[in-house]
C-alpha cells in the first residue's frame, strides 16, 4: 500500500502543491486529472524522488520512505511527459542499459522480457530515433517496467499519439495494472474514464476529488465544476 501524506511544494512564493493526501491500496490504475499547471507533474516528480517536497511524507506499507533513496527508486517505474530517450541507441541497448542501472541480475533476459511485454520484439535491433512515436512510447514504458517495479508512474502517456497508438497504449496500461499499481496523469477526460478505476482531480495544487470512476456520474461536468 502506498500512502501519500500532506505533500506540499512551493516554487518561490507560489504554492504548487498544498497538503496533498491519498492512498493506493491495490493493483489498479489511478488517474491524476487536472488542468495544465494544476500540479500533476510536480506531484509525480516528488513521488519519483526527482523533486523534493517542502513537507509531507510517503509510506510504503506503513513504513516511511526516503524518496531520494535507491531502495524507493527501485520500487518505481517512471515514464515522464515527452518520453525522453537516447535516440542513437538501439531498443535492445537502451533496455539492457536500463536493466543494468536498475540492478537486474540478468540484464539480457530482463530486457527481452520487457520487449515481449511491450510488443517491441519487431524493433528490438532498431535505433530508437528511427521508430514511430507509438513505438518510442512503448520503449519508454518498457524502460519503466524494467526491474518489475511495484508502482508505475506515467505522465501523460498518450500525448501526441495517433488514435490507433492511443488504443494500443491504453490496452497495454490496462494489462499492466493487473500486476502493479499505476498512477497516470492526463487532462483528457474520456481517457481517464476509459483506463482508470479511480480518479483524483487536482486543482491549484489541491486534491478536490478522490473517487472511484464508476461512481462519478458526469465526469465532464464535475471536472469543470471542481476546477473552475
Amino acid at each position, binding site marked *: 500500500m502506498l500512502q501519500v501524506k500532506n505533500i506540499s511544494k512551493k516554487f518561490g512564493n507560489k504554492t504548487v502543491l498544498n497538503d496533498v493526501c491519498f492512498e493506493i491500496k491495490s493493483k489498479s490504475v489511478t488517474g491524476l486529472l487536472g488542468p495544465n499547471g494544476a500540479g500533476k507533474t510536480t506531484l509525480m516528480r516528488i513521488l519519483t524522488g526527482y523533486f523534493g517536497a517542502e513537507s509531507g511524507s510517503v509510506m510504503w506499507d506503513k513504513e516511511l520512505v526516503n524518496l531520494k533513496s535507491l531502495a524507493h*527508486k*527501485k520500487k518505481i517505474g517512471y515514464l515522464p511527459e515527452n518520453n525522453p*530517450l537516447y535516440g*542513437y541507441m538501439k531498443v535492445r541497448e537502451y533496455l539492457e542499459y536500463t536493466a543494468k*542501472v536498475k540492478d537486474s541480475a540478468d540484464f539480457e533476459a530482463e530486457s527481452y522480457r520487457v520487449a515481449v511485454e511491450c510488443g517491441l520484439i519487431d524493433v528490438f535491433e532498431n535505433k530508437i530515433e528511427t521508430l514511430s512515436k507509438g513505438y518510442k512510447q512503448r520503449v519508454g514504458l518498457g524502460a519503466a517496467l524494467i*526491474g518489475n517495479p511495484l508502482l508505475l508512474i506515467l505522465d501523460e502517456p498518450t500525448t501526441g499519439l495517433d488514435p490507433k497508438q492511443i488504443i494500443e497504449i491504453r490496452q497495454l496500461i490496462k494489462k499492466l495494472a493487473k500486476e502493479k499499481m499505476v498512477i497516470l496523469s492526463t487532462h483528457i477526460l474520456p481517457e481517464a474514464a476509459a483506463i482508470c478505476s479511480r480518479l483524483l482531480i487536482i486543482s491549484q495544487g489541491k486534491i478536490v476529488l478522490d473517487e472511484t470512476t464508476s461512481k462519478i456520474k458526469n465526469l465532464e461536468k464535475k471536472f469543470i465544476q471542481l476546477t473552475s
Partner: protein
Amino acid sequence: MKKILTIATKEFQGYFYNPIGYVFLGIMMMLACWVFWGDVFVAGNADIKPLLQTIGYLYSIFVPAITMGWIADEKRNGTWEVLTTNPVNIRMILWGKMLAGMGFLLVSLLLSLPSLLSILYLGKMDLGVVFSGYLGLFLLGSTYLAIGLWISSLTKHPAVAFIGTTIFLVLNSLMSQEIILSKIPYFMVRVFEQLSLGDKMSTFYNGELGLNAVVYLVSVVVLFTWLAQKANEKTI
C-alpha cells in the same frame, strides 16, 4: 562501482555515435602528426615537448566540446529526469561520465603513439619524458573534463557550457603566461602560478614525475566533480 562502469560504458560508446567524437580524434591525430613530424623533418629535432604542448592547448578547445552536453544536454532533452529517477545517485552518474571522458582522452593520446614509436624505431628518445609527458597530459585533460562537467551542470544550454568552459580554461592558461605575470604585482604572481593548471605541466614535460603536481591535478579533478555533484543535487 558496477553502475559507474555501466554509465561510463554507455557514455563512451555514445562518443562514437556522435560526429564530434570522430572530428575530435581526427583533428587531434592530424595536428599531432603535423607538429611532431614537422619538427623532426624541418628542424631535425625529435623533441616530444612541442607535441605535448600542442595537445595540451588543443584540449582547452576540444575538451569543452566533449563536456558541454554531459549534463546540459541531458537536462535539455529530459533524459536527466529519467536517469536520476532510476536507482542511481548523482555521484555515480558524474563519475561515470568522468570515466568515459578519461577513456576518450586515452584514445586521443594513443592515436599519437604511432609517431612516437616510429621515432623510437629510427632513433633515440627519452622514454621517461614520454611517459611523464603523457601522464601529465592525461591528468591535465582530466582536470579540464572535471571543470567542463561542473560548468555543464550550471546550465541547460550546451553552447553556454562550451563557451563558459573554454573561457575558463583559456583564462587559466593565461595565468601562467609571462606576458600576464610581468604586468601584475609580485604577490599575485605567486597566486596565479599556484592556480594555473598549465604551470604544473612543465615538470611533466621535463620528464619529472613531481608528486606535488600529480596530487594537485588529481585534487582539482575531485574538487570540480564534487562541485558538479553539489550543483546537480541543488537543482533537484
